[in-house]
């Protein structure tokens, strides 16, 4: 019997191009809504794996590190990262692994095997949730202000420096926001906002609407 976990989180193995709620027309709308001080764009699609396990079990952290090169971030609402992957804190026993699309399947199977060897008490597991969230990037000097329009988290750089992440509500819908040092190799930090895939267009609409406030007349 085929195992569910053979599922790949990655699109290239199948023939069809995948649907993206933030495909061309939405990306255009977002980029056209940008201002001199705030830019918004769809984030690149990445593999997203949900990891669960007992952080108190050193074997768990080791297994994660062995597979991903990253330790689960020890501090709540922070992330660890290297050039390829990021590991974001989601809960005291829950993390999200972000990886390049083509590495998703490998990481999934590697982690599955590694976790299977752990003590059942750790209750470790990994699951592909690449489809469940879609991300947007917001950057520029007024990026935080834009989000403050609909988000009650303290996103001031003192409270939310690079390397922080947090789940909360933005525009009334649940999001995960990460403060990343770079955006796609570009040399500026950005706020990456993950929303549920079914809601991300609503969020994009909300952002476009919100940006209107930041455009000066005549622009």
């Amino acid at each position, binding site marked *: 019997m085929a195992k569910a976990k053979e599922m790949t989180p990655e699109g290239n193995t199948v023939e069809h191009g995948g649907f993206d709620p933030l495909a061309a027309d939405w990306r255009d709308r977002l980029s056209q809504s940008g201002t001199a001080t705030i830019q918004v764009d769809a984030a690149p699609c990445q593999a997203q794996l949900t990891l669960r396990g007992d952080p108190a079990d050193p074997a768990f952290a080791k297994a994660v590190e062995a597979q991903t090169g990253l330790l689960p971030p020890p501090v*709540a609402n922070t992330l660890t990262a290297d050039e390829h992957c990021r590991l974001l804190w989601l809960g005291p026993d829950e993390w999200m692994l972000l990886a390049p699309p083509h590495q998703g399947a490998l990481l999934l199977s590697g982690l599955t095997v590694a976790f299977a060897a752990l003590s059942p008490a750790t209750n470790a597991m990994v699951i592909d949730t690449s489809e469940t969230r879609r991300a947007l990037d917001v950057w520029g000097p007024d990026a935080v202000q834009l989000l403050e329009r609909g988000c*009650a988290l303290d996103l001031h750089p003192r409270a939310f420096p690079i390397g922080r992440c947090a789940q909360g509500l933005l525009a009334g819908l649940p999001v995960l926001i990460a403060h990343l040092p770079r955006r796609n190799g570009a040399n500026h930090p950005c706020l990456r906002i993950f929303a549920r895939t079914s809601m991300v267009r609503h969020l994009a609409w909300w952002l476009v609407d919100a940006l209107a406030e930041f455009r000066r007349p005549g622009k």
Partner: protein
Amino acid sequence: MERIPCPHCGPRPLAEFSYGGEVVPRPDPEPADDATWGAYLYVRSNPKGPQSERWVHIHGCRRWFTLTRDTATHRILDTPLRKEEA
């Protein structure tokens, strides 16, 4: 009451949470008579004063936790310890 202290994420806006109400133990169903069961399902202490109650950080870390709150003032008295921030 606009902010609830999540033991994992710290104080966060109320809208990120869902209220679970007073902590009520579930009796053993087998010996329980209808009155006991009805009491478990519906009857609450509903104190005016400190109450031990459950919340879940539903739009955050999704963890349930228990805190003590004075229902007479809505003030949170005893917040669960926030996990070390290191």
